[in-house]
């Protein structure tokens, strides 16, 4: 981990490999606790981060292991902001269509659940293209 310019934030860069998921989610959970969240909330944040990083590795990088995933944790008194960047292409806010859980229960199918978990477990999620870099920004407020 290298310190970022902002003393209230830090960054981690991992290879685009699923074997590092556990490391990232453990860090996200610890960071959530440091930010002042309780155990249950911290666990939800870590799952959202798992899903977001998995999306990058599997979908943006198509499972190719030679790329990088950059993760930044930014601490504010009232919130934890997590930004995840990749260069493989990504979603935009307007592309995101969340499955309706009620419909899902009626017509179960495989897939499409990760974004739903992210949206349910975080307070805000945004996707944007930064010109060659795609960003997923997730916010969890500290109550």
């Amino acid at each position: 981990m290298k310190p970022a310019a902002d003393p209230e934030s830090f960054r981690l860069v991992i290879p685009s490999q699923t074997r590092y998921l556990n490391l990232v989610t453990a860090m996200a959970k610890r960071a959530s606790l440091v930010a002042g969240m309780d155990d249950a909330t911290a666990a939800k944040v870590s799952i959202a981060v798992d899903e977001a990083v998995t999306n990058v590795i599997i979908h943006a990088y198509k499972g190719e292991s030679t790329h990088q995933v950059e993760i930044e944790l930014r601490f504010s008194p009232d919130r934890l902001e997590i930004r995840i960047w990749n260069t493989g292409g990504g979603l935009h806010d307007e592309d995101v269509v969340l499955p309706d859980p009620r419909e899902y229960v009626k017509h179960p199918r495989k897939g499409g659940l990760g974004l739903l978990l992210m949206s349910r477990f975080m307070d805000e999620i945004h996707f944007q293209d930064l010109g060659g870099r795609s960003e997923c920004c997730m916010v969890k407020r500290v109550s």
Partner: protein
Amino acid sequence: MADLAIQVKDVGGVAVLRPEGFINAHTVRMFEDALEKLVASGRFTILLDCRSLNYISSAGLGAIMGLIETVRENGGDILLCNLAENVFAIFDTLGFTQLYRVFPTDVDALQALSGTPE
């Protein structure tokens, strides 16, 4: 410690599968293989004992979802028990607690399967 270990045992004709660790995109293949092996050998009643499961991501939920039709078409089911709070939250958030029977303990689940009062 490995990210995931899986124990499988037979309890009165019920295949009890106990994952220990994390089920995510990295480990899901092992979890899926264990479930598929049971189904391929005709074991259609499967109890997922989640007492040692630290978390399950959507990849793991997809693995369960991928087999539920097959087991139910063959007169079986996939049941869940011993869910920690964070694991329950994941299942519940996605509506899985309406799709699957969830029991507080393995004893409750096995009693329900054997037809005796819980």
